């Protein structure tokens, strides 16, 4: 079992916390993990990405070859598209629909979403709005982890354990909120695929 995931977003959105949850879960299951990250200049509001590879066999490359990614998970719609060409043919493009507009020439959001919909396997969800409904805009990332959870090759309850591990030191209420967000993401993702 091997899953290659490219996580994308804008510097400051927290792609590394998404990577941390998935990586912690994979490590708990005794899997191999490689995670390449962007540090430095781009972290200041620029586009950022992280290559996350989990496998039951040793992993050679720190970077995912273009054309071989199983999943591109975008915390922002245009950022999802920026790395979508890394996907293999039947790979999943999963994107938050809320745009992060810190550039003057941001294209119309409906055009961006239309491009995402051209991918045979795609999921779009409004993680920001759903996070606010749950009571904290901070959990948008975890909603996206929930949305991607059926495609990771990891068990859902192991991801729950991963969340307990990552958020445990912040107290039980934070853990519960994040578990709720994970569940919400899974539900929205399943619903999206069913309707589509």
């Amino acid at each position, binding site marked *: 079992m091997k899953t290659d995931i490219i996580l994308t977003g804008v510097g400051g959105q927290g792609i590394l916390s998404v990577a941390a949850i998935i990586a912690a879960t994979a490590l708990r299951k005794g899997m191999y993990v490689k995670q*390449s990250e962007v540090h430095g200049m781009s972290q200041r509001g620029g*586009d950022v990405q992280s290559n996350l590879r989990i496998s039951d066999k040793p992993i050679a490359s*720190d970077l995912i070859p273009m054309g071989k990614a199983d999943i591109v998970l975008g915390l922002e719609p245009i950022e999802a598209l920026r790395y979508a*060409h890394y996907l293999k043919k039947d790979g999943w493009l999963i994107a938050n629909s809320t745009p992060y507009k810190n550039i003057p020439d941001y294209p119309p959001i409906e055009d961006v979403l239309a491009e995402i919909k051209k991918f045979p396997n795609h999921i779009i969800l409004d993680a920001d709005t759903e996070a606010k409904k749950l009571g904290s805009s901070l959990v948008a990332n975890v909603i996206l982890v929930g949305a991607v959870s059926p495609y990771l090759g990891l068990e859902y309850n192991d991801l729950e354990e991963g969340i307990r591990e990552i958020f445990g030191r912040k107290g039980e209420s934070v853990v519960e909120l994040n578990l709720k967000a994970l569940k919400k993401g899974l539900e929205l993702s399943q619903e999206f695929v069913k309707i589509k």
Partner: protein
Amino acid sequence: MKKLLLLGDEAVAQGGIDSGISGFYGYPGTPSTEIIEYVQRSPQAKERNIHREWSVNEKTAMEAALGMSYAGKRAIVTMKHVGLNVAADAFVNSAITGVNGGLIVAVADDPSMHSSQNEQDSRYYGKFAFTPMLEPSNQQEAYDMVHYGFDLSEKYKLPLLLRLTTRIAHSRGGVEVKDEARPENEVRLPDDPVQFVLLPNIAKRNYEQHLLAEQPALIEESEKSPFNKYIDGPDKSMGIVASGIAVNYLMENCPEGCNYPVVKIGQYPLPYNMLKKLFDEVDTVLVLEEGYPFIEEQLRGFFNTSPKPIKGRLDGTIPRTGELNPNIVAKAIGKEIEIVYSPNSIVKARPPQFCDGCGHIFFYKALNDVMEKYGKGRVFADIGCYTLAALSPFNAINSCVDMGASVTMAKGAADAGLLPSVAVIGDSTFTHSGITGLLDAVRENTNMTLFILDNSAVGMTGGQKSAATGRVEDIVKGLGVDPDHIRIVNPIPKEHQTMVKVFSEEIAYPGLSVVIPRRECVQTYIRRIKMQKKAKAAK
């Protein structure tokens, strides 16, 4: 043995802690910063009181590390590739003095210039200085090489260069670490009291009888190194030489093992006999290396009388510039990966930018207002977050060359008659390399205005402590700048008019002025407030 998930940088740090190190020295710089940051968080380092404070620049760091080595203890000095330019005098001469305690110079190169002004390859420095070098191909090797490197450094009494590249430095992988750290060295003077005195006669002796005399032994070490391997393959139509992270990209494309014979390189100077064996057995040689064609050029030198082709960056098999990736390597070995989708033209560039509320924004708004009447092309800037003002909508600066160059370039332009001449530098870059340049301007009372943007942090690399914090005016005054022309402003929107007035006055003044717009970095501010809240909640 326990297994940790570590960045390549962190593996170097933990490797140091576990192999009996007494001090880390360095200056922040992407992609090397996380080495010392990890040590600063490490409970083991705290308990043992391993030195882990940032230095003012790479040169002072290199010299302090050499001093620790003189005293018999082990040290690592870390920096990014261009930092080695700053430390080069100390580094090259440390090979002539040799070392006492083990000394590793851990340098992280940034091919593709993700966060740098060039993609220079530090391996040339190692060759230039005749030091042994190690280059890890994964995080485990980054850890293991530190222990091995200290042994090699102490055996040959030479400094050792450990070369990392971005994708090793900033990628996490599983690392098996030792359960127990090796003890640190005791303080012990060098056996030869004049070893470190590079008067010409002693320098000649050290150079000829030690540094050069040990070169054959260093090549022999490379021939039998655990990090250099000859891996045979059935197809002799091509042989591959791969170093550093290129080894991983090669293995990614050959999960069942490579059909061609491969020489994996992790230790330099190059193992001539191992490479000769490969060269004799195959029809062509492909070189896969991250960075400049360092191995490729040497192979051309070794085997220059042979008609066999050597392929790599010089003949176009591999792109001449930029970092490698699995796709480039796949193509070079004839296994091109199928790409289904193409990049989408709707995607717009999203360059990095100032954080919301950053003082630099309001400083540049005022500076642009003042400079408008003089026209473009007069603002010499430096290296830090404030370099982002080169981009839209500010388009406010005209240079970014090397640490501290703003001050001295503004001086040279003023000397040439380009008036007004303005320099913009951050507080940490000022203490790094701006002070000496300012002294040049003080001596001649050069007609220029220097802006020292004091955000009390090394912002771009993540808000490390700046050596300038709390002492910028004292330094400037101490250098001899006229106190009447040292002005402090608060770069916030409601101070715009005040800034415009102060900037106009000082730019109009026909001598040297220093203006200090001072406001804490918003990132360090947010972090500080969070910590305070946490501390309060804990009470």
